[in-house]
């Protein structure tokens, strides 16, 4: 899957190198060095995904996330800062993913693919991930063909993750969606429910391959 990608970074060297990697993968690339340029370029016809560095000279990049999301573009945030609060803020504002600098080109391209794949609303139908298959409308989950009995909350959390496969869903998002606004802080609920899901779905619950933890940020269903 190739797409038109906008690279927003104030360092031209980074833009050039990322452009190279993206073009080798068949994407077509536009560049912007400032927030102002980014907003203009992102609005242009055909742009599908924006790689957004947060350290821009004219404006905090995180403020652009909701603006670009409002244009219906996928957003992957590039950040030099390894601060969980920033990641959570970016995701809560609608970013599809984040990558911490320095990043591996292969990893970045993989994230781009994922973000593009799920740009269109995920069909809420059935999906199979490894030996697990999830049928959301039927509320049915099987592992190796065997039906798995999930509690209501377990299913709700799994469904929320499955709606955005490969994307980090923040703790707050999951808690709000499943337990309601009053329980946004009750991360314990989520921990207990995730543990239940791991035990029921993972081949080796101690080394989960399906339900990935992003410390301090959220969970990701690896699709």
């Amino acid at each position, binding site marked *: 899957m190739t797409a038109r990608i906008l690279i927003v970074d104030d360092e031209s060297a980074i833009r050039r*190198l990322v452009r190279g990697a993206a073009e080798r993968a068949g994407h077509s690339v536009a560049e912007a060095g400032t927030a102002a340029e980014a907003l203009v370029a992102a609005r242009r016809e055909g742009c599908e995904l924006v790689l957004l560095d947060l350290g821009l000279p004219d404006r905090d990049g995180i403020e652009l996330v909701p603006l670009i999301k409002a244009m219906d573009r996928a957003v992957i945030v590039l950040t030099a800062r390894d601060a*969980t609060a920033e990641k959570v803020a970016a995701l809560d504002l609608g970013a599809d993913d984040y990558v911490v600098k320095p*990043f591996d*080109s292969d990893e970045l391209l993989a994230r781009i693919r994922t973000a593009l794949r799920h740009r269109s609303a995920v069909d809420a139908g059935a999906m199979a991930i490894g030996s697990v298959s999830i049928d959301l409308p039927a509320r049915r989950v099987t592992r190796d063909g065997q039906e798995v009995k999930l509690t209501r909350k377990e299913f709700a959390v799994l469904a929320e993750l499955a709606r955005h496969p490969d994307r980090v869903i923040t703790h707050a998002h999951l808690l709000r969606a499943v337990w309601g606004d009053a329980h946004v802080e009750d991360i314990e609920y989520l*921990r207990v429910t995730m543990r239940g899901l791991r035990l029921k779905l993972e081949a080796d619950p101690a*080394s989960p391959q399906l339900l990935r933890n992003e410390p301090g940020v959220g969970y990701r269903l690896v699709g």
Partner: protein
Amino acid sequence: MNAAPRPSPDALLKAARRESRGQLKIFLGAAPGVGKTFEMLREGAERLKAGDDVVAGIVETHGRAETEALMAPFEVLPRRNISHGAHTLAEFDIDAMLARKPAVALIDEFAHTNAPGSRHPKRWQDIEELRDAGIDVLTTLNIQHVESLNDIVAGFTRVRVRETVPDAILDDAEIEIVDVPPDELIERLKAGKVYVPQEATRALGHFFSKSNLSALRELALRRAAQTVDRHLLDHVASTGDAGNWAAGDRILVAVGDQPGGDALIRAAKRLADALRAPWTAVSIETPRSATLSAAARSRMADSLKLASGLGAAIVTVPARNVFEGLTAHIIETRATAVVIGKSQRSWWFELRHGSVVDRLVRALDGVAVHVVPVGDVAASGDEMRSKRPPATRGTLAGLGFVALTTAIATGVQTLVGPNSIDLLYLLPVIATATLFGLRSSLIATAAAVLAYNFFFLPPLYTLTISDPQNVITVLVLLVVAVVASQLAGGLRQEATIGARTATENAALAAFGQRLAAVSDENGTAQAVCEDVADLLDVSTVLFARDGARLVVAGASPASPAIGPVDIAAAEWSFDRGEIAGRDSATLTASDWQFHPLETALGVLGVLGIARQTRGDPVPADKRLLFTTLLGQAALAHERLKLEANAREVSALQQRDDLRATLLSSLGHDLKTPLTAVVAAADALAAEHGASATTATLKAEARRLRRVFDDLVEMTRIESGALTVRREATDLTDAVAAAAQDLRAELARHRLVLDVPPTLPLVDADPRMLHHVLINLIGNAAKFSPVDTAITVQARRTPDRLTLAVLDSGPGFPPGEESRLFDRFTRVDGDDMTGGTGLGLAIVKGFADAMGLGVTAANRAEGGARFALVWPESAIRRPLKDGDAT
């Protein structure tokens, strides 16, 4: 890096919604014909020139050539025909506009009502929908179409429009006034340049009068200013930068002694809220004030207290009378509106003194005078003039003077004859009038007239007057009595009030100076206590909060007698911000009466006062003074507190700012080239095929990153800048995430995870724990020979939970355990594996910060064992079933 303060995601989302929504710009005019459409088109042309995609939706040129000429550059959206009865109406086509989706749409006549059958009944609703779709809209509006002004305009123009737009939409828009002086507009009208709809022609002559146009113009200007004010206020609210009022209305409420002052204050508060204006409660201290009863004084003090509680500033103005005091103060403070109670005085009083309201209205130009009916009339009469010397005493004295005069006159008559006797009788009348006032002097006058008549006027010893000249004598005596008593009474009152206000003002000024001079809290407290004790002749004590307890911060006289019930009353007063103790509603057993020092920062102290005689601690006539003193004391405390806060904050801020700037610029400066190195290596590999060289490049870049992260974290640990965010953590989760991140480093080892899923959750900072695990597991991988096992093992024991990392490396030299966690401690072999010597120091620093233990030991079977230990207090109880699932 340090998380720099930034607005919450919610605030950003809101801002983004505002930003991604189309902007609305309204060209607002006072009347048709001012050139709104013209201005709109001109702005549209400018945007077009600037490269924006501008489309004309609806532009009513009304056949004006100059306007039509301006239309030329625009793409015009075709109208939609809607058949309505026999007519076909050409309406704005919202769907076409949405489909066309330009950057900017020009749509005339914001208040237009759409033809029946349109999507929205009103055009402004169409425009809202366009804005939702991200389209900027330029539009035009006449002021009479603004909903809140509709009535007002109809009131003076007698033309009512049915098409109105809600005010809220204006608040959200940028408003540009299109302004033309009334004379010029009338000229244009006469020249036929103004298009007027047929149905309005009749009303035209009236509508376009100069006075109407001026009024409309003013309304338009004010409305635009209001919108600007509101934007500013919203901005202030969102930035939290309060304290600066936009230029605009200032409201003043005149507080009197009449009952019902509360209603007056509330009315003023409502007005202030509606106008978002600051307001001041003014009491005018006149000579008459001195004669007020205790009840009236205390009513006045209560009103002022209520006003101050509702956010008003309190001012007392000494003046000869209410009218003069008020006007002077209004002019001085440039108040824009004054709220005053409808007078409850008798028509007789008003006839003599003039109605303050009437005179205010006449005297003040450009100030709105709001008259509020207040209270019941009955209450006030008996309370007036209680301070006048008792009338009976005056009457007796007056009669005595007259008797004395008669005695003297009888003696003198034989010497000078009867003709000058009448003059003698002026003396008792004037004396009584000056000393005892009008009523006594009138009685004295009557007595003097009778005595003169009886003893000296022929026929003697009767009360008949035969000579008409003598009638004049009697009348003159009466007039003298009235005039003299008025003059003397006024002088007497003015003198006392002047003296009293002067002493009080001097005392207040001195108080203010003393407070300004002291710069610490205890000094302030002591100054407050001493001055209040002096001025009110009471004992005082001031409590301030020290941690959880109230402590005596000042007292006069020193070492006051404070019992448990007094402390309780003081605490109640502090916590609730209400008066407590003696003569209050709460804990009246206390000898003290406690008054909270209320400030914008909350209650900062309580002032206790007590009177030796156990009477009311604050006599009614001192209430006003006391309220002012209390206010000043509170302000002084607030000032100190703010200063202290500011000092503390700025010192902390400077340190934090410096550190944050340093770390984040380091982060950027180092990670940017690192990113470039990694990407370049990838590029090399892609162009020339992957090689050992490119792999090394990438591995080294990754290692450099870890080194850098360690450095940053160490800096934070050292500077005490760590903020711990504890959350319930599943160790299985945490270990799995660390293993995932380390998969490259662990590629040549066997990782054995022995973390039972039945373990309880523990408290940990997710980011720190992740870093700790990376360091420990990474270390193990570094020191363990290839293909050996690295085990991560968690165990619950009765009083703790231990997470251990076991490796199969060489271990460390015995006795080094305690040094391992020091900075830059490197063990043999570290050189080859490239450690910084910081890794374990960070483990220790983070563990300490999270309240965890950390141990190191050599294993009997070879290799090292590093362990994190959670104490019982950091282990979560299992959730009750059903809470989570």
